[in-house]
């Protein structure tokens, strides 16, 4: 029955709004810009209506009604700021706080706690409750990623509904009654599924906190930048939370920059959620990074300047070009590069006359039928859309047979994909193995020239997810140590080789990319915005 829903009109705080039939009062209030506080309501979950904080006055009904469960009706007159509403809300808050511990100083949620927020907005600062508070289990690890503090729980049941409805694993439940009611894991189980980290996000208070983030950094030290998860090809929309105060507080988390990742709402990709693999897969940004240009060309390895590194590669390529031997040059791009990087690389090598340019995906990994994809490449679709061929296998075989002189590998650790022996063999047959990438691993160690490059969290650009959705990433951090953006390195190389490539920044590259590449025609950063745009099929 796909008839368009009837529109109804109601008055909220004197403002008239028109909403489709079936909307709840809470949603209508939001539309009317009269936000109502809520705890148990979550747009991605079923409605429970148990926290009662969303009380509003509806003219004509004697009692206050909960906005999250009351359907809006035609001609309804709702009051969200009347004295009656506010005093009702205050009383509800006081009930919620009856057994709530005074934990804010040690609570990781402090600073982003809805209980704190609403209390500051509506609170009575002198509690009337004189009895002793109920004691409940504190600091209980209920799974590999989540810590439970039952005293802080306000029993909104969001987490329980999440495990029932979204992850469909049902590990959590609310046990006992009345004052003794507490949230917990079902007997013999632990909260361990691909999406368990999300309960921390949806818990409006500090009852469920992240064990990875625990005590690491106070939330008010965090800066947030919109980005896209690079953990798999789904490309869940995220925010990168990094230590904004690192300059003055280098002691936090041993100087790491990224503190945590949080999902960001995108109705077409990940809704409100993200998987644990992606959520906790940010360590590579600060750990085991390549910091300097390294030359192992002749004799002992040594660190070098950018000019030395680029000059060496440039000279080799120039020699081969003059000898018309560019067919002995192979380039293995990576599905971790942004569309901008790939485009600049494509142009550079096309104008040089290097034909053997492919891209390589990382090894497939775990997947499920919700978000997590087996293909772990954040931008394989982008590389395909740019018309770049896939798989480095052929080039490696050629190298092993001695048919290649130069192989330029980007980002991927080919040894984990094709096995260590193959890479060693290929490296032996090559005159120059260049590795341009972010982290140190076997392929980087075998390379004759190592160029450190920036990770996605340090780049501006776009990635294309498994559905062909082009999504924007923003640089949350500056490049690590001496690393540089991939397209900047390639542009440097272009200058050495006399190829005219000089984009000032990522937006300029994308503008040119959209003009030249048919798959990207008509796209722009403005159009992509925060939520991304699908490529033309």
């Amino acid at each position, binding site marked *: 029955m796909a008839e368009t829903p009837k529109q109804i009109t109601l008055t909220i705080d004197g403002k008239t709004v028109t909403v489709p039939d079936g909307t709840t009062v809470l949603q209508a209030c939001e539309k009317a810009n009269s936000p109502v506080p809520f705890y148990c309501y979550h747009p991605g979950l079923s409605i429970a209506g148990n926290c009662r904080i969303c009380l509003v006055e509806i003219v004509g009904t004697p009692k206050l009604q909960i906005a999250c469960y009351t359907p809006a009706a035609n001609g309804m007159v709702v009051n969200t700021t009347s004295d009656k509403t506010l005093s009702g809300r205050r009383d509800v808050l006081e009930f919620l706080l009856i057994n709530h511990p005074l934990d804010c*100083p040690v609570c990781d949620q*402090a600073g982003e706690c809805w209980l704190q927020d609403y209390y500051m907005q509506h609170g009575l600062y002198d509690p009337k409750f004189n009895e002793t508070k109920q004691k409940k*289990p504190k600091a209980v690890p209920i799974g590999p990623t989540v810590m439970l503090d039952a005293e802080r729980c306000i029993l909104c049941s969001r987490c329980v509904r999440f495990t029932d409805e979204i992850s469909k694993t049902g590990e959590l439940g609310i046990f006992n009654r009345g004052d003794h009611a507490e949230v917990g894991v079902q007997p013999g189980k632990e909260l361990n599924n691909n999406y368990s980290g999300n309960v921390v996000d949806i818990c409006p208070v500090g009852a469920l906190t992240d064990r990875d983030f625990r005590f690491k950094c106070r939330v008010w030290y965090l800066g947030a930048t919109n980005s896209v998860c690079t953990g798999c090809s789904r490309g869940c929309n995220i925010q990168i939370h990094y230590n904004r105060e690192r300059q003055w*507080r280098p*002691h936090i988390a041993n100087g790491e920059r990224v503190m945590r990742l949080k999902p960001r709402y995108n109705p077409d990709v990940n809704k409100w959620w993200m998987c644990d693999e992606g959520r906790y897969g940010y360590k590579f940004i600060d750990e085991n990074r390549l910091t300097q240009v390294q030359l192992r060309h002749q004799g002992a390895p040594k660190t070098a300047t950018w000019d030395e590194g680029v000059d060496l590669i440039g000279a080799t390529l120039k020699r081969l070009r003059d000898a018309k031997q560019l067919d002995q040059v192979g380039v293995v791009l990576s599905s971790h590069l942004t569309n901008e990087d790939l485009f600049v690389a494509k142009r550079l090598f096309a104008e040089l006359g290097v034909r053997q340019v492919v891209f390589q995906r990382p090894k497939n990994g775990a997947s499920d039928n919700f978000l997590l994809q087996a293909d772990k490449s954040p931008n394989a679709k982008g590389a395909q859309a740019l018309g770049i061929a896939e798989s480095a296998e052929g080039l490696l075989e050629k190298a092993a047979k001695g048919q290649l002189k130069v192989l330029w590998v980007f980002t991927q650790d080919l040894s984990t994909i094709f096995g260590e022996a193959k890479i060693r063999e290929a490296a032996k047959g090559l005159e120059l193995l260049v590795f341009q990438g972010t982290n140190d691993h076997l392929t980087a160690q075998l390379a004759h020239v190592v160029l450190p490059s920036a990770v996605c969290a340090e780049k501006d650009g776009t990635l294309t997810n498994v559905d062909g959705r082009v999504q924007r990433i923003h640089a949350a951090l500056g490049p690590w140590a001496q690393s540089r953006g991939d397209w900047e390195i390639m542009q440097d190389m272009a200058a050495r080789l006399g190829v005219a490539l000089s984009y000032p920044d990522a937006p300029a590259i994308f503008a040119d990319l959209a003009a030249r590449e048919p798959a990207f025609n008509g796209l722009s950063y403005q159009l992509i915005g925060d939520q991304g745009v699908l490529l033309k099929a």
Partner: protein
Amino acid sequence: MSTLGEQLLHRIRDAHKRRTLTWWERIYLPAIAQGLWITSMHFWRNLFLHIAHRLGLFRDQPASVTIQYPDQRRITSPRLRTRHRLTKREDGTPRCVACMMCETVCPARCIYIVAGEHPDPNVEKVPKSFDIDLGKCVYCGYCVEACPEDAIRMDTQRHDIAAYSRDGMWLDIKELLNPGTRQFNEPPEKFVQLTPSEFRQLPQTPPPPPPGTGR
């Protein structure tokens, strides 16, 4: 454009606008006489009062003395903001719960706390390391104001933070918990991390006689 530049220009113009001295002021003699008068007034007053004190007179009128620092120290008000210390629970662990309120509020950003797990889930959080760089501290006392646990106080009555290097002005957690245990020429153990059981084993020194009580 530059406000700093404007301010500087303003000052220079103001300096030029200075009032010219009168003839009376330009002979300077009255000003010299005035200065001599103030000095000698203090001299005679103190001379008189010290003799009178010997004779048991005017005891309620204080006379100036030179304090023989560092053998003798001045009596300071208990409210004076002096060097920090961390207060302890009965079992010897710090009262501090590493909430980072003081670290956050500190305008000099000279407090560095690394939080750790406390074995008692009702305490939950405890600092592993707690460092204050006194070389940066401006003695504002905001840290004390901000602390919800009365865990940091500025009541040691110590204000001698002289050191041979900037590092010497660094207070590590051991020194903060037991003020005065580190010798003047010992280097601080920057960012030293202790576990709750190590806190309990720290020397439970009776607080050394607070300097600055004058006794």
